[in-house]
């Protein structure tokens, strides 16, 4: 029984870190996509959404190729003494990648609903560009972004395939809730499986309820 709570704690830790990273990168990239026109913008947009449609195992494989001990980035990190494979930090990377598109997509849509005239007004009033982002664009887009962030959190919490491939299933170290469910069922521990499934479902339902409250964007029109 106690292992269930350990798995829940680990899941929350991984999901929170992953959501935080996905939020920072997703908002930045979503903003760039909504404001700057450059060749290949739509192609980049599609590529960034790939984690939503690729099978998690394929994603996990890509990550192994990238950060594995002999991977492009992994070999280099290895020299610095950083090992990501079979660690909870590796699980965070896997969860970040699957959560990222949810934030990015909703952030782009939310920034596109912000009338550029508000940013122009701030510009004429003497506000420096980075300050305009934090004082005008972000607050006006925030509700739409938040809905995406919650979905990203739910997705990160439920992440299974890519996490299993990158971080494995080490109890108390990388065995998250969704992986623990799989292990429990395989081992015939129905009682543990039942508890784990209930906890996971309860977490996801509360996130979805919260997201549903925020999702119907209170569209901030031109005053």
């Amino acid at each position, binding site marked *: 029984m106690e292992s269930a709570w350990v798995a829940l704690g680990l899941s929350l830790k991984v999901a929170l870190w992953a959501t935080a990273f996905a939020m920072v990168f997703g908002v930045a990239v979503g903003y760039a996509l909504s404001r700057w026109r450059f060749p290949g913008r739509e192609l980049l947009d599609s590529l960034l959404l790939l984690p939503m449609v690729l099978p998690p195992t394929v994603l996990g494989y890509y990550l192994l190729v990238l950060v594995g001990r002999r991977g492009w980035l992994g070999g280099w990190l290895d020299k610095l003494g950083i090992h990501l494979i079979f660690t909870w930090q590796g699980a965070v990377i896997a969860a970040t990648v699957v959560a990222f598109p949810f934030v990015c997509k909703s952030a782009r849509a939310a920034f596109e609903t912000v009338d550029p005239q*508000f940013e122009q*007004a701030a*510009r004429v*009033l*003497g506000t*420096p560009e*980075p300050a305009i982002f934090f004082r005008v664009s972000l*607050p006006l887009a925030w509700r739409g972004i938040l809905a995406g962030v919650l979905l990203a959190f739910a997705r990160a919490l439920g992440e299974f395939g890519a996490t299993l491939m990158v971080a494995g299933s080490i109890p108390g170290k990388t065995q998250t809730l969704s992986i623990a469910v799989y292990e429990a069922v395989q081992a015939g521990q129905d009682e543990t499986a039942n508890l784990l499934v209930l906890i996971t479902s309860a977490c996801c339902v509360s996130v979805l309820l919260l997201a549903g409250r925020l999702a119907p964007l209170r569209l901030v029109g*031109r*005053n």
Partner: protein
Amino acid sequence: MIWDLDVHKLMGSNGHRFRLDIAFRSDSRRLVLFGPSGAGKSLTLQAIAGLLRPDAGHVRLEGQALFDADRGIDLPPQQRRLAYLFQDYALFPHLTVRQNVGFGLAGGWRNPRRHFRHEMVERWLRSFELEALADRYPDQLSGGQRQRTALARALVSEPRALLLDEPFAALDSQLRRRLRAELAELQQRLSTPMVLITHDEADVQAFADEVVCIDAGSATQAVGNELAAQAAPA
């Protein structure tokens, strides 16, 4: 010379082209750019404010170049110290009246707080009779109150000139008459140079010392309230 403009810009793509060639000089503190919608009035105003970058030419205000293609000068809008009244006022919907008015005074990466107090802000709130509304949000204001808030926000940082984009278009006709008079009175009091763009002849009658007619991207200048066309330089 207060205004010295010579602005050229080729806009658009995919077969739909618009050529902006606006040149005028004026010493009027109440200048009206008059013309039908789609003639290039707003683009001209944006070029003055630095929101639109011309391909060639110059924009000078009281002898200072805000933009000069030949000399490679292009001050960002932040450094032009102009105020711009947008057609639908562009009040920040997430900020109260007081926060909106104080927006330009608050440096840094954070908006003025709700209880932010600043002498200049309070002065302008008083002068536009907005004190009672200071804690309201823009969507809780009437058209006239929004315009006064936008004017207060524009004037609080003591701009060198005020640019007004169809300031009365969003108002009903009775209010329009009253606010026209208020604006003319305000201009007299502040003596800040103002450029107003409109497609409404009544605005011209009420406000203009000088009129520049803009049609299909080019300008003709007339002095006083005379709309009689007079060839523009270049």
